[in-house]
């Protein structure tokens, strides 16, 4: 996939991410071991909601985070393949966020030592949106983003 | 025409039986047709608004089915066109143009007449499924010709308006065995809806003519 995009994240968006996640508590080191579901993180409804709580610093843009086998256009938003690979040393977690979904955070993966810092999954997208790959490595946060266009179309069949 | 040549040569080349489908004159064909019609009656069940009488073909449907996607012979075509022309109900007020904005909405939706559709919701014409119209809509089909600049290319006069109205009302009156539904004749669209679609094609202000 040639689309190793590293679009500059809007300041607001990046800060929002961090606040969202900090508020949710999974920035704490102990969260990596927890197998509880972090309701607060997954409940955030809109970008606006999280924008209000802005305060923390934005995660750094990183060229070491790549989208793998992730198309620019999804023929159906119900199933959008997303692959994220991090080349950042000591990658601890990878999260996938969809900016325009009702809930931004789609999935969060904890990567223990010995596991490649690369995951593939599929997410739902309600509409064309930026998708963020947020990586925690050596205690710090990094992000990369990519716009995916969603077409719902043709014969529903 | 070109398509038929392709199909013919292909059938000859590959020798695949039955690819050149529906040889209307082949012996036994009438019996197969009769048997197929009988088979349909036991193979479908009514559902929602779609009753079994939808399988009863009128003369146009029957004739066009017989020629299996190929143009019917001249005399059959003329008969179909004459028959269908007689069904067109022209607007009593002599006006053919409605509101192109409503026409665009009608052209965008294909709701209506499926057993899964709510019969209380007005039907659409789904023009974009088969035709290019306003250039802003990239998601258009190619089963029918492009209708972009329909009025601009033909002129906005009353005669062309009337032709467009008649064509939407009953396409078989102008082109026997056309793939296009007979929107007025089959009561898919109301008179006002047809006028709106005609406006989409014929109003100089419509995006189709930009």
């Amino acid at each position, binding site marked *: 996939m040639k689309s190793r995009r590293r679009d500059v994240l809007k300041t607001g968006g990046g800060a929002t991410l961090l606040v969202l996640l900090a508020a949710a508590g999974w920035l704490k080191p102990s969260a990596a071991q927890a197998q509880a579901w972090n309701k607060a993180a997954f409940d955030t409804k809109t970008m606006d909601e999280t924008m209000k709580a802005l305060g923390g610093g934005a995660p750094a843009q990183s060229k070491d985070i790549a989208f793998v*086998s992730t*198309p*620019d*256009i*999804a*023929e*159906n938003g*119900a199933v959008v*393949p997303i692959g994220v690979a991090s080349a950042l040393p000591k990658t601890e977690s990878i999260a996938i966020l969809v900016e325009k979904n009702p809930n931004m955070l789609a999935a969060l993966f904890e990567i223990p030592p010995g596991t490649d810092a690369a995951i*593939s999954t599929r997410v739902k997208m309600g509409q064309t949106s930026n998708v963020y790959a947020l990586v925690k490595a050596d205690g710090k946060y990094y992000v990369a983003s990519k716009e995916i*266009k969603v*077409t*719902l*179309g*043709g*014969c*529903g*069949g | 025409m070109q*398509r038929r040549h392709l199909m013919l040569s292909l059938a000859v080349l*590959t020798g695949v*039986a*039955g690819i050149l*489908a*529906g040889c209307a004159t082949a012996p036994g064909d009438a019996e*197969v047709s009769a048997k*197929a019609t009988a*088979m*349909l009656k036991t*193979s479908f*069940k*009514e*559902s929602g608004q*779609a*009753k*079994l009488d*939808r*399988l009863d*073909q009128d003369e146009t449907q029957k004739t066009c*089915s017989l020629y299996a*996607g190929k143009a019917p012979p001249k005399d059959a075509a003329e008969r179909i066109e004459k028959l269908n022309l007689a069904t067109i109900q022209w607007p009593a007020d002599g006006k053919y143009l409605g509101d192109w904005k409503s026409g665009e909405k009608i052209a965008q*939706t*294909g*709701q*209506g007449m*499926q*057993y*899964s*559709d709510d019969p209380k919701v007005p039907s659409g014409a*789904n023009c*974009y*499924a*088969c035709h290019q119209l306003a250039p802003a*809509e*990239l*998601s258009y089909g*190619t*089963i029918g010709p492009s209708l972009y600049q329909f009025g601009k290319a033909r002129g906005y006069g009353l005669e062309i308006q009337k032709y467009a109205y008649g064509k939407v009302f009953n396409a078989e009156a102008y082109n026997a065995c056309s793939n296009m*539904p007979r929107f007025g004749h*089959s009561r*898919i669209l109301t008179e006002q809806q047809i006028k709106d679609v005609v406006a989409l094609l014929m109003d100089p202000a419509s995006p189709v003519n930009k």
Partner: protein
Amino acid sequence: MRAIHSGIACCAALIAVVVMPVAFGQGSAVEEIAKYRAALQDGNPAELWEARGEDLWKQPRGPKHVSLEKCDLGLGAGVVQGAYAQLPRYFADADRVMDLETRLVWCMVQLQGYTEADAVKDPFGGPNRKSDIEALVAYVTSEARGAKMNVALNHPKEQEAYRLGEKMFYFRGGPHDFACMTCHGDDNKRIRLQDLPNLTKPEGAQLAYTTWPAYRVSQGELRTFQWRLNDCFRQQRFPELVFASDASIALTMFLARNANGAAYNAPAIKR
């Protein structure tokens, strides 16, 4: 790759909205959608249906508490591998032409002791409603992956089914005057942005027929060829096609036979 999704009106169900900036030309959109489809190939949820179907095939079930492992799909009792690529076919024991679904129903009735009504009661799955037939079809078809389509027209009833199916293909009816042919009788056509295979030619029929059943990502369900036909007729504004009816078998025969020579490659995954 492309499915046979028929009916000009098909966009009615999911009103077609293409959210695509004008700047995105159709050429590149089509290319990108091809990449999307390629990305889906790895990890087809149809495998979940295949696995469930294999269990259903091997488990003793029904009033007689026997498995389907003695079911003859045309290549002898219990032979599953490659069987789908030679269906529909004439079965002497039933004295009729059967497609896979019809044959499975037959075996469920004859071997397992189900009533016919029970065997056909859930032909298609939906949310929280699983169809055993769909799972069995997924399993049997998966065992034909790679086999060459080889549907015979030897028996007079096979020949008759083909001709009846051909008639159905061109049968125009309903308020919209649609036939299968309306959308699938010509080359290089599309409905909205969806390419339409020409099912009267080997290339089109092969492309379409060898890629069903398919996991439909838009529905999150595995869909069989019987479902494909059923939904085409809904969009054609016909009444509802009866599951495993003579017409469904005849039309399947017409399309399967036209696909002869191609390598069967399903269950697939489609939008």
